[in-house]
């Protein structure tokens, strides 16, 4: 009988004191799903509120707190930890042939940091409520808002360290624990994407830590760093904040790109087209992503020449994303395609990511940004990237590796229904917002012009379909734990080390040490799929 699976051990302590990267990944999955529904509730409140032009469901203050909660929880406690911590933790060691992450204790400590920071922030947001938006712009957050800003800042500060330690863990694991024969050019593209994300996690998050520290000091002791009366500069806050936050949006999208590379090659049964270009485009996004933060401040009083430079660099950063999109569609040429559920999520990703990327270039255009900045056009753009692409990537990964994580198969039909519902509900929700934005409806408006009501009602209708689509997997995936049939070792006949171990994998991933002698995505007929 092969070694018992990692889920074999029972009891609470086996979960809360585990050092096994697979169990920590499952802990992250539960935590991240909880925060996803907490943020989603706030989003539902906002969409119901915006059905009528005058604010009747929530007061102005209530609405401001709702969108701040939605922003803070979704960005820092769902999008940033979702794929790197859940699937990064589970898959990185298995995909490179290692027994565990480099620093197991640091891994568990990161989860406790995220959980502690998250609950503390959610508590501070619910009990006190902060109305500064997730961007904490000064002098509003330092001189004109209530004391709970400092509590929320402490929560996010703590959770920031969870990102830093996860990033360090992944980089060290990929550098030092690869199985013999697993050279850099044989690594799966998911590993390249997670490695590039970890570089951003490690280098950008400390700047957020010091910025939040300065805002808290400014709020408590009126230190003056961002207070213009003492000579400080509110624009300096925006520079420091966006220096972190733009790389942070690449933290959210890069792992999802890695997932889609895996899904496309597995569904098409074919090696990816242009492996080197797609691999190095992840690293290129990570590096250039650090240079473009100024395009958030074209209208904020930044000098014209700095805006010119940032606009040009923003066009440069869109090239690696274009390379990925083109290479994905080129991979499907002469492929042997099976239309299973995860692949539909990958198609949703490609469709919505391309629209999101192109509208991002709209906002990089200086003259167009003068009009579209801080309107619903921006809201639609970043939701297309964060919700359309990153969450579709997360759901694709969930449906693709669910048999490997839990050892159970779920119903493909329901998976496909969810994918189609997500695509339709999403477009109905956010495409009208592009039109609203160009018509001039500003962001974060609690009551708006009656002219805009029709498009807002369309958007709220779409939001209800999207909410349904996000709740569906909750049933058939958890249902599969009980009624799902046992999953074989390789349900999708995919190539990759994780499909050569039993599902769910044993505690130490591999019975005997692994040597890798095959290229990445080796679907050639002679490559037998024998169990390792």
């Amino acid at each position, binding site marked *: 009988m092969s070694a018992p699976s990692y889920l074999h051990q029972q009891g609470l302590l086996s979960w809360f004191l585990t*050092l096994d990267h697979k169990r920590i990944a499952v802990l992250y999955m539960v935590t991240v799903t909880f925060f996803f529904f907490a943020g989603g509730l706030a989003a539902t409140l906002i969409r119901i509120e915006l059905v009528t032009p005058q604010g009747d469901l929530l007061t102005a203050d209530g609405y401001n707190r709702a969108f701040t909660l939605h922003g803070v929880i979704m960005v820092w406690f769902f999008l940033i930890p979702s794929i790197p911590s859940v699937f990064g933790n589970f898959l990185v060691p298995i995909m490179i042939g290692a027994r565990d992450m*480099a620093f197991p204790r640091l891994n568990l400590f990161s989860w406790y940091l995220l959980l502690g920071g998250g609950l503390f922030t959610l508590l501070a947001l619910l009990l006190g409520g902060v109305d500064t938006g997730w961007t904490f712009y000064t002098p509003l957050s330092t001189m004109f808002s209530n004391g709970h800003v400092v509590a929320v800042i402490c929560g996010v500060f703590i959770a920031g360290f969870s990102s830093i330690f996860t990033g360090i863990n992944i980089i060290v694991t990929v550098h030092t624990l690869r199985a013999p024969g697993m050279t850099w050019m044989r690594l799966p593209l998911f590993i390249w994407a997670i490695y590039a994300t970890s570089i951003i996690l490690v280098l950008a998050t*400390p700047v957020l*830590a010091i910025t939040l*520290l*300065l805002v808290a000091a400014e709020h408590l*002791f009126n*230190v003056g*760093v961002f207070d213009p009366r003492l000579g400080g500069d509110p624009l300096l806050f925006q520079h*420091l904040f966006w220096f972190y936050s733009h790389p942070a949006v690449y933290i959210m999208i890069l792992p999802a790109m890695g997932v889609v590379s895996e899904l496309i090659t597995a569904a098409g049964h074919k090696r990816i087209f242009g492996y080197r270009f797609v691999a190095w485009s992840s690293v290129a996004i990570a590096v250039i992503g650090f240079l473009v933060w100024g395009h958030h401040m074209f209208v904020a009083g930044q000098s014209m020449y700095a805006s010119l430079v940032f606009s040009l660099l923003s066009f440069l950063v869109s090239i690696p994303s274009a390379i990925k999109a083109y290479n994905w569609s080129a991979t499907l040429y002469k492929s042997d395609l099976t239309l299973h559920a995860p692949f539909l999520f990958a198609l949703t990703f490609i469709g919505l990511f391309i629209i999101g990327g192109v509208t991002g270039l709209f906002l990089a255009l200086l003259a167009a940004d003068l009009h579209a900045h801080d309107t619903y056009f921006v809201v639609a753009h970043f939701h297309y990237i964060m919700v359309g692409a990153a969450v579709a990537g997360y759901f694709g990964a969930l449906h693709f590796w669910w048999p490997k994580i839990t050892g159970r198969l779920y119903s493909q039909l329901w998976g496909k229904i969810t994918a189609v519902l997500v695509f339709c509900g999403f477009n109905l929700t956010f495409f009208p917002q592009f039109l609203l934005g160009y018509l001039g409806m500003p962001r974060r408006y609690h009551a708006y012009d009656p002219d805009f009501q029709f498009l807002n009602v369309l958007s709220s209708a779409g939001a209800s379909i999207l909410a349904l689509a996000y709740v569906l997997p909750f049933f058939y995936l958890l249902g599969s734990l009980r009624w799902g049939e046992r999953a074989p070792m390789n349900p999708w006949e995919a190539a990759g080390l994780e499909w050569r171990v039993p599902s769910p994998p044993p505690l130490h991933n591999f019975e005997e040490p692994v040597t890798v002698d095959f290229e990445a995505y080796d679907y050639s007929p002679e490559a037998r799929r024998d169990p390792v």
Partner: protein
Amino acid sequence: MIRSDEKPAEPFVAWAQQREAARLGIWLFLATEAMMFGSLIMVAWLYRLQHPDGVAEAVAGLHWQLATANTFMLLTSSLLMTLALAASEQGNALRLRRCLLGAALLGVLFLACKGVEYGLEYREGLLPGFAEDSPLHLPSAHLFMNLYFIATALHAVHVLVAVGLGLWLYMRLAPDNLSARGTRTRLEMVTLYWHLVDGIWILLFPTLYLVGR
């Protein structure tokens, strides 16, 4: 004489691999510290460029003699930590522990000196939050004083952590298990962290105290 039952930690197959991983891990952590303090130093330089006169007034009031003594102490502690690492490579336990203790004591002396400095500034009414009758009348001087306080306090916390690590390692290095591979790796990590804390002070010292006196 390496004890035979001592095998590398769980995920690693060889000692060299584990030391390599620990070294890369500490270097990445140093990179995050450098990014954080780098941003703080850049903010200080931004305000030096924007308000030269206000900053000059604030810098005039700082106690540069104490700070120079502090810099000397941190440089010596860095030397002692390097000598400690050299002693561990030669297997000389006594020198290793003496150097480690020396470095930790110098760190405590640095913190004491910093405390004295804060005490003087508190009496002069320069610290943020307690500055009712502060002698500074330029607003940007207040700003720079507050920035000085945040930067030095954050650095003092890191010196405190470094001293704690040094003393913890001193306890662990009881004469018998000096040669355990794990402790030598830990010694190297603490040495690297110590040098970073010293390197940050080397850049903070002129930025806050010396330029534009």
